[in-house]
């Protein structure tokens, strides 16, 4: 069965907005990162769907690359989370507000 | 123009610009030895003056063509050329610059903080001014126009008075706003001309041939006027000048009033008027009225001042109002008078600023309330002060009168009412100058102060100025002669 392209796009859009909402509403660094993951997954979904729609592999390649990038990013991010926790014993994003103005 | 370029000749004009630049660099390199810097600055200024004097002697008469012309391709992508050109007017301004610079260096002799930087900036300023008076490519002109601001900015902001930083910023930003408008106008004119002729160039002489619609011409002209009138300075855009002049160190005030102010008017003569003849014609009545407003406003404001330096700053504005009025009359005699008045105003007001700084050095104050009775304590100083004050208020037989009367004679033939109103300003000038003299020279002497009279160095600064003031007052012919051809040419709207 072929899911209509429009549906896939709509679903991905909803997913993206959900991810963005998560990023915006949560204060926890980890939750924000999870939100970003959801946004990236939404993008992946579009790539895959579009790939099917255009009958090309480009989109799928991109989505694989995206996964790799995501993994690298998460690795760095988690290292950062650990480092921050050691320094400050908090993971609330807004607690890191030593610089402003 | 072309026949001048075909002859390879010694680049005198570049020398005028480069000599001070080299001097400035050498000064910076000798920052550990202040005495050397002084000598270096003096030597450089002397050399520049010698060159200027040589050119003046060689080219004392002008038939309106370029006396010297240097033209080298510079930035080819935009058709920007390195064009330096000198006619009689530029010659006079160059001579004035070189002369005032000598005085400024001598005046700055006793600067104690960061001597090398001070002299380097002073020389850089001279280079910038020379460039403004000589450049004949708009981008080059703009470059020098802005470059001259920086040394003045630092002279004010580092060596200035109590309120120096604010004054320096105000000075810089104010003039900057004006010149940005000019930049836009320059670029726009360049594009219009390029689109019309296919030749992209910034050389003023070529741009003069651009065909502009009335609206275009008006807007472009306005852009240039914004720069030149702020610099001139036109009321109500003059408050930067009073602050800057008041706060600047002595040598800075001297250069600012004697030279930097003149660049605005020079810009009108060299750039704005020739490029936009029709807009100029329409604008002249407005310009004349603005000049009169400035003349009176500044004279009135001068009368109210207590700080003698500020008073002189206002007097400068007032005088320049008369200069602009002469230009607005668009008449040969008036123009020659205006240009002569620029020169003489530079010398007289410059000398007054020198004297104010000497008085300040001796008494520690510039307030008229605290001064007075100087005549009894330092008669030579006081005599000089009186002499230049009288010159400044336009006493016949001294320099300013020669310029003023020519302006008035010329203006009256075109616009009698302007001339009559401007003449009333003469009383105003007398009112504030006499108030100044009365506040400084007359009255009872302060016994507790010990005021040494003029030293050798100070004589060296003032005496040449005094001699010039008298000389131009009774025999201005050598300074008028180079102008005849050039002014006639400009008024006719022709290429030199």
């Amino acid at each position, binding site marked *: 069965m072929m899911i209509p392209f429009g549906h896939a796009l709509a679903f*991905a859009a909803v997913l993206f907005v959900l991810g963005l909402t998560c990023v915006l509403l949560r204060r926890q660094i980890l939750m924000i990162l999870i939100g970003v993951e959801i946004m990236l997954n939404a993008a992946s979904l579009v790539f895959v769907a579009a790939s099917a729609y255009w009958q090309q592999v480009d*989109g799928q390649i991109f989505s694989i690359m995206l996964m790799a990038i995501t993994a690298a990013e998460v690795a760095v991010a988690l290292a950062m989370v650990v480092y921050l926790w050691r320094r400050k014993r908090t993971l609330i994003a807004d607690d890191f507000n030593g610089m402003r103005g | 123009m072309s026949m001048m370029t075909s002859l390879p000749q010694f680049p005198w004009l570049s020398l005028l610009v480069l000599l001070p630049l080299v001097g400035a660099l050498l000064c910076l390199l000798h920052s550990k030895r202040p005495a050397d810097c002084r000598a270096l600055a003096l030597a450089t200024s002397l050399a520049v003056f010698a060159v200027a004097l040589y050119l003046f002697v060689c080219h004392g008469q002008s038939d309106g063509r370029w006396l010297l012309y240097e033209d080298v391709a510079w930035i080819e992508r935009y058709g920007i050329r390195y064009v330096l050109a000198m006619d009689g007017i530029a010659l006079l301004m160059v001579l004035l610059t070189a002369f005032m610079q000598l005085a400024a260096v001598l005046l700055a002799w006793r600067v104690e903080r960061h001597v090398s930087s001070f002299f380097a900036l002073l020389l850089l300023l001279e280079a910038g001014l020379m460039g403004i008076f000589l450049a004949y490519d708009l981008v080059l002109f703009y470059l020098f126009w802005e470059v001259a601001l920086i040394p003045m900015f630092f002279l004010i902001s580092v060596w200035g008075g109590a309120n120096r930083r604010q004054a320096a910023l105000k000075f810089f930003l104010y003039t900057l706003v004006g010149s940005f408008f000019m930049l836009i106008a320059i670029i726009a004119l360049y594009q219009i001309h390029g689109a019309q002729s296919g030749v992209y160039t910034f050389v003023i002489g070529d741009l003069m041939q651009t065909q502009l619609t009335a609206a275009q011409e008006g807007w472009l002209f306005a852009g240039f006027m914004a720069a030149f009138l702020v610099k001139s300075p036109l009321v109500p855009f003059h408050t930067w000048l009073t602050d800057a002049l008041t706060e600047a160190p002595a040598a800075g005030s001297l250069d600012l009033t004697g030279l930097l102010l003149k660049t605005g008017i020079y810009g009108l003569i060299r750039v704005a008027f020739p490029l936009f003849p029709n807009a100029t014609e329409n604008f002249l009545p407005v310009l004349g009225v603005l000049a009169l407003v400035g003349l009176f406003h500044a004279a009135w404001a001068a009368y109210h001042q207590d700080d003698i330096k500020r008073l002189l700053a206002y007097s400068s504005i007032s005088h320049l109002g008369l200069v602009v009025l002469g230009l607005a009359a668009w008449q040969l005699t008036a123009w020659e008078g205006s240009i002569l008045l620029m020169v003489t105003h530079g010398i007289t007001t410059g000398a007054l600023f020198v004297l104010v700084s000497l008085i300040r050095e001796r008494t520690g104050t510039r307030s008229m309330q605290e001064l007075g009775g100087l005549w009894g304590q330092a008669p030579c100083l006081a005599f000089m002060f009186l002499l230049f004050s009288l010159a400044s208020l336009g006493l016949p037989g001294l320099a300013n009168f020669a310029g003023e009367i020519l302006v008035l004679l010329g203006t009256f033939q075109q616009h009698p009412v302007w001339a009559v109103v401007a003449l009333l300003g003469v009383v105003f000038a007398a009112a504030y100058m006499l108030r100044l003299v009365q506040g400084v020279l007359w009255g009872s002497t302060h016994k507790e102060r010990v005021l040494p009279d003029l030293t050798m160095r100070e004589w060296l600064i003032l005496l040449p100025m005094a001699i010039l003031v008298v000389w131009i007052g009774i025999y201005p012919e050598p300074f008028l002669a180079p102008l005849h051809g050039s002014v006639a040419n400009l008024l006719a709207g022709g290429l030199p």
Partner: protein
Amino acid sequence: MSLLDLLALLPILILVFGGTAILMAGAWYHEPRPLLAGGIATALLAAVAAGLVQPPVAEIAGLFSAGGYARFFTILWALLAAAGLMIAGRFVVEKKIGAGEYVSLILYAAAGMALLSSATHLLGLFLALETFTLAFYILIASNRHCEMAAEAGLKYLLMGAVATGFMAFGIALIYASSGTLALPEAVVQLTTATGELHAWGLLGWGMVLIAVGFKISLAPFHLWTADVYQGAPAPVAGLLATGSKGAVVAALVGMLAMAGPIWHDLIDLIWLLAALTMLVGALSALNQKNLKRLLAYSSVTHMGTLLVGLLCQTSEGLAATTFYVVVYVVASFGAFAVIASLADKRGEPMSFDQWRGLGYRHPVRCAVLVLLLLSLAGLPATAGFMAKFAIFHAALQSGYIGLVMIGILASVISFAFYLRVSMLLFQPDESASRWHVGTSLEHAVLAVCSSAVLLLGLFPGVLFDLIGRLLP
């Protein structure tokens, strides 16, 4: 991917493999200086390679261009990386940063920037962007002794991650609407696409614009800039302010040069962004009391001006933009280099209280800083003027008088804050303390930057001609 492709990719390969080699070496060999020297040598070698080796192909794997334009920026970023390493020497040694990691990350970042500048494919663009972004995540927080560095790292990381999300989703939408990721086509297709697809595509471009806006800190996505520059060590901040932004702009220039004037639908938006960015950056810098933050906001203004150049879409505009990028990179990096060269055990001089009167303690470097700031401001006779001149010229030619006026307003405000700093440096203050005298490498970098600023100001023709020939 053939051998010829690899030859064309040689500079990048030098950077990447050199970086990896140094990373490996760093694991066993802890003496930082040789590692740094190796890094500098690698970067210079890459620059030389990019300059001398004529690439046999025009395009590498359909992802990256190998044209003169790409090579030009490869050289620039490689040199920038070398300079970044030169001024980082004392930082790495004194803060006991792992030299191997630091050097390799810088080299990776340079590789990423070089790739980004030569991207001809959205995938290449995305990958290159992520490459140096990831490197910067780490570099920014590399100073473990500094609270602010960690905070800056976090801020850049989270913002960057979200921007990546936008970028990815935007590209996905573009792909969905146009069916291609290759660059000119992805744009060209958009004009022919109709109805819903057209809309999705435009939305995609808009989201890419948001991500790009974050990277080059366009208002209103600029808020992180000041915090991150302040927290990041000056050698890193220097690269971040110049390379990471310059590379993105270079990519945009390349994209536009190839795609031609087809961004009509987005023009209003970009116009607004440019105007907003110029003004917000200039106004925000006005009250700053911290030099690094001030430089951050100044970079915001400059990005706005660059956007004006991009908006013109004419070859005049693109050449101007490219010139502007180079000039901005030199001047801005030089300013950070001055900060880095003054840094000592106490850290970097940042707040205005620390800078006050410093001109009398370190006259030469402060004079250089003033010169660089004036170039950033756009004073004639410095390169900054010619850059602004070129942009204004292009913008006027394209009829963007309003933007030019706003640009002038921003310039005036910029002059105000640059001059305030200049005055501050030479304000007599006996309590001004002495900072580090700087190493000869740092001085060399400063000498190069300042002379470049002056030479490009007086003789910009050389660079203009070069750019004119290189623009794709």
